[in-house]
């Protein structure tokens, strides 16, 4: 029986997204560390300086995309690690949706914070 093999299946899509986000995070995480530890130093951090950066649309959108991709990559990584350790059945379903809920809360809170800095009223 002929079967259609494609990476566009549920498992394959998540595998691919994990790698696409990895490539993005490699660049943006390096930029984040470099900017906030080497260009600006940790003991110079202030609300005013962060506000100045976040008021730029390109920086704001980069940080929001950074948050969303990092959350996906991290939480999906945790889920994969647990599945590798033998997580199955009801426990797997409960943990999966707990991780989804935690991700939603993390992203929502991160965007609220970014909005507060950017001067966007929604926070």
């Amino acid at each position, binding site marked *: *029986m002929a*079967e259609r093999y494609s990476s566009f299946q549920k498992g394959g899509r998540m595998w691919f997204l994990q*790698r696409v986000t*990895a*490539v993005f995070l*490699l660049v943006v*995480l*390096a930029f984040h*560390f470099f900017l906030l*530890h*080497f260009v600006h*130093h*940790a*003991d110079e*951090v*202030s*609300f*005013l300086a*962060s*506000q100045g950066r976040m008021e730029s649309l390109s920086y704001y959108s980069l940080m929001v995309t950074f*948050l969303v991709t*990092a*959350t996906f990559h*991290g*939480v999906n*990584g*945790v889920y994969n*690690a647990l599945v*590798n*350790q*033998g997580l199955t059945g009801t426990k797997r379903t409960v943990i999966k949706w707990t991780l989804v809920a*935690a991700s939603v809360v*993390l992203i929502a*809170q*991160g965007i*609220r*914070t970014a909005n*507060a*800095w950017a*001067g966007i009223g929604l*926070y």
Partner: protein
Amino acid sequence: MSQSYNRGLIEDFGRWREFEAGMWAWIFHKFTGWVLIGYLFTHIAVLSTGIPAAGASEAAIMAGEDVYTQTIVSLEGLLLVRILEVGLLAVAVFHMLNGTRLLLTDLGIGLGAQDKSFYASLILTGAITVASVPTFIAGAF
């Protein structure tokens, strides 16, 4: 015909003495991944002090007396936090270097040297971390 099977628990850490470079790379990648996602939640929690800080007066913000700036200044004043930041850098650098190694391996690049690229990731992580210590510790004393 596709088949599914229960492969059971393959990651038996009790066999750690038998592990080769690839298995250690796998373990370190998982460990650093857990640390990084844990840190992301902590990071957003600390950054959330920016929300009440946004409601502070302009004079307080200009003077750095808002709750966000005060929280960061207090944390960065602790030597322990600075040391943890160096640890975070080491964890992030290893995860990034080994992650690059994994991406290349997935593409079939460097398969024959996957053990050497793991050792290179470790050495480069050590070098970058040591070179960054002065920057990360500056102003802590």
